[in-house]
């Protein structure tokens, strides 16, 4: 395990062992194991890798068919434990839905009620805090249907921050955000990750490189690699080379801004090797998996 610093006497806040989940004939998760303490853990993988299923299990809304789950030291298959976990959990789904007639404030307030905050002044204070943290104080009175897609994602993020959760599950939070919003998001999540556990799924390698202390690369329901972002990049060491043209031996190649071609695959002898990035490692990992399945 490439453990995160949990700052809690070595006690992991998320522990999954051999998780399996099947939907009819589709095996969504196949023996997934991972551990996480305080910090940000990124789930990286293509569509259909099983990230959302895994996050739903972490959010306690889906039960695995097999395997062991421990969240915040509790077992979510037990009703009482599940309730305690949910009291310390924030969850932003991949496709957050909204009651579009609500204002941003009313919507977050609605979720605050679902989070057992019934005392109105204290609840409203917490709603304002979550909206402010997400940079939404100026639009809190606007109807959700009048907000842009990026703003709506921030509203979804705001509801997940209610109650200052110890475990934050974010499913594709940067999808649909413009570059400025994405930077703001990174800044905010990075600060939040200083004293809690955040599990974030993405297929944006830049997000993982910028935010996460630990990354889990998934494909077809399996964990391909667990480690630091640099470990993902290291997978591609010796497999990335620059050439004046597209090399036929490369599995993937593209023309860079400098006019040369960056080739990824089995480098030929004497090739001009390049420093690998997390993106190179990810492409190689996921690409190899796809290649072996096709064979």
């Amino acid at each position: 395990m490439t453990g995160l610093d949990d700052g809690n006497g070595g006690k992991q806040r998320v522990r999954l062992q051999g998780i399996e989940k099947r939907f009819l004939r589709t095996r969504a998760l196949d023996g997934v194991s991972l551990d996480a303490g305080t910090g940000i853990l990124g789930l990286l993988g293509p569509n259909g890798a099983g990230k959302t299923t895994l996050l739903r299990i972490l959010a306690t809304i889906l039960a695995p068919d097999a395997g062991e789950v421990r969240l915040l030291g509790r077992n979510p298959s037990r009703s009482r434990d599940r309730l305690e976990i949910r009291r310390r959990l924030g969850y932003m789904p991949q496709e957050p839905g909204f009651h579009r007639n609500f204002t941003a404030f009313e919507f977050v307030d609605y979720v605050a009620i679902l989070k057992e905050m019934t005392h109105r002044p204290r609840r409203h204070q917490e709603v304002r805090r979550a909206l402010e943290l997400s940079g939404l104080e100026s639009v809190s009175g606007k109807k959700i249907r009048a907000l842009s897609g990026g703003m709506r994602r921030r509203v979804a993020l705001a509801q997940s921050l209610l109650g200052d959760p110890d475990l934050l599950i974010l499913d594709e939070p940067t999808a649909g955000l413009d570059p400025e919003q994405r930077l703001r998001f990174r800044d905010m999540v990075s600060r939040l990750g200083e004293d809690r556990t955040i599990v974030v799924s993405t297929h944006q390698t830049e997000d993982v490189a910028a935010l996460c202390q630990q990354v889990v690369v998934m494909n077809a329901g399996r964990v391909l690699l667990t480690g630091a972002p640099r470990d993902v990049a290291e997978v591609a060491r010796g497999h990335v080379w620059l050439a004046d043209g597209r090399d036929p031996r490369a599995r993937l190649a593209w023309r860079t801004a400098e006019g040369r071609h960056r080739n990824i695959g089995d480098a030929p002898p004497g090739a001009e090797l390049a420093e690998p990035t997390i993106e190179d490692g990810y492409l190689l990992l996921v690409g190899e998996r796809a290649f072996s399945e096709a064979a």
Partner: protein
Amino acid sequence: MSWHGDPALMETYALGILDEVHSSSIEAHLLRCERCREAIARHVGRDRIEGMWAAIEERLDIAPQGMVERLLGRLGMPDHVARLLAATPSLRLSWFGAVAIALAFATVAARAGSVGVLQFLVVAPLIPLAGIAVAYGPRVDPTYEVGLAAPMRSFRLLMIRALAVLITSMALVGIAAIALPHLDWTAAAWLLPSIALSLGNLALSSYWSPQRATVGLVAAWTLAVVLGERFSSVPYAAFRAAPQAAFAMIAVASIVVLARRREAFDTRRGR
């Protein structure tokens, strides 16, 4: 301008204990005099400013409530329950409008003859059933997934919404029933089937998706009424004493199933 506020008077005003006449005079002056505004700021406590600001925010934030929520508030419902109900698809004005139109057609048909009365009796129990089917669940509630991950029990949310939908739907059907041609036993014959089908739908939803449970119950209900009319010598056979007793038993059995299966609503079924 030569006149400025007396410092002692200004301090009393800042503490919020000055009488109304002097307060009005000072407020009129403060609007025009920057020097006095700066002077008074020193006397106003941070707690008081934060309290006033919180009150302003509170008024701004709660202002744009929807019509359903405002109405429920006026009826004395706690604000958090009113907000939970305001997010219920089958408690929106558009839903009530659709129900009113359906009931209007059924009532007009009922006035045309006995077949129309039977049609009304078939449709009436389906209205609360349909309302409950779209009150909560994975395909009808956009915040279903967020709600599941929250500590409030999904079963509790479902019961709050179902009860509100049942009461409002049955009130609308009850009003329509008054317009039936004969105010005899048939005007109330839909009551027990309505309750049985609605509770049955909730109980089946602990096994299947609410939509699947609804489709199954609508089919079974329609078939039962049609077969009753086809093979019985008495009219409105499905609404006579024996079937009514069966509906009461279904309602009780559904309550037992719901109590035992309440945790089934706590997690997703399927993807």
